[in-house]
């Protein structure tokens, strides 16, 4: 996990420097500021509890006008709301994900759209319980390592300039992915989102806000 993360940071840095050399156009560095926050504000109502989601972005323009490339990596660690109807009484997850998108900007209104591939690697662990009124309760545990999901994500975004350097990006996103493991259906898949009752084909959408900083 650590080596993957460090290699990703290195590759982003490489792409960043490389892109600047070729295009010498503005490079934006961003961070998601919404994901994960509801899990701290409403831990009992929201579908995930106390979940750290770190999702940085790098965006740079291509030579064609209005076209850009977005590269992102994410890390999520937390737990989801337990579903006692499925006997589960504790459920934790951890995962990293990589996204890339080819973005196009509308020339008249400040709305952009993007689509690109994504890859998520996640691990799940938890506990389940069967009540045994006569002989005592049975407590079991499950642990799934390195569960992969591969798919695509698309989004529509609106950029709001805060200052010369800072801008806020509001976006509606949708992800669709195929999962490698089919033994356990997770409520939340890192990078994809709410995936309750979906074991192999994951499909999830959402709203988010990102803060972008213009580097050059």
């Amino acid at each position, binding site marked *: 996990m650590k080596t993957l993360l460090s290699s990703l940071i290195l590759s982003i840095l490489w792409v960043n420097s490389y892109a600047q050399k070729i295009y010498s156009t503005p490079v934006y560095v961003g961070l998601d500021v919404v994901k994960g926050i509801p899990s701290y504000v409403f831990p009992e109502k929201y579908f995930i509890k106390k979940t750290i989601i770190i999702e940085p972005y790098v965006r740079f323009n291509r030579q064609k006008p209005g076209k850009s490339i977005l590269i992102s990596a994410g890390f999520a660690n937390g737990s989801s709301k337990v579903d006692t109807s*499925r006997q*589960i009484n504790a459920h934790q997850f951890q995962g990293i994900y990589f996204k890339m998108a080819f973005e196009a900007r509308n020339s008249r209104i400040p709305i952009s759209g993007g689509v690109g591939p994504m890859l998520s690697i996640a691990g799940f662990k938890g506990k*389940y319980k069967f009540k045994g009124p006569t002989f005592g309760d049975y407590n079991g545990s499950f642990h799934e390592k390195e569960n992969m999901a591969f798919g695509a994500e698309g989004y529509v975004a609106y950029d709001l300039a805060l200052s010369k350097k800072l801008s806020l990006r509001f976006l509606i996103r949708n992800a669709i992915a195929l999962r490698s493991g089919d033994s356990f259906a997770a409520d939340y898949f890192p990078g994809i989102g709410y995936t309750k009752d979906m074991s192999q084909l994951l499909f999830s959408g959402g709203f988010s806000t990102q803060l972008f900083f213009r580097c050059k």
Partner: protein
Amino acid sequence: MKKLLPLLLIIFALYGCTDCGPQQELSVRISINTGKDSIHLNQLYALGAVDQQVFQKQVAYFNKDQYFSKQFELPISLLADSTTYVFGFNNRTDTLTLFYQRDFYYKDKCGFVIDTKQPARLENSISTFSQVHVNYESYLKEKFTFPSGIGGNGIYLDITL
């Protein structure tokens, strides 16, 4: 549309849905053939049980039943691959140790389910009864169709005193 509705219902019934099984402490069905003699059960208990209430209820049912073949429904332990019951009759005391293999797994649309399999050992039970026949069947129906489906009866014991 009105004509289509029964057809849709039939298709739905034949197509079936997922059976999750009991998802709770499992029980085995026991049938004791007492022969022609009337026999009285004084007590029944299981080793290691934290609550014996369910066995006391079964004693009352047993003594009320007038048939030669008497039915029980007894819980099995989820904490071990065997459960031992002690039957105290008016003229004899019998023990029965039933072996099984617990199977906990995750099933789509159900969550975690519980089932049993035939034990890995040679004998299915150790008992002082003259004859014990154990029949192992899954607690989960193979294909759940209307009105019932295949299987899902669990462990069934046929005992001759």
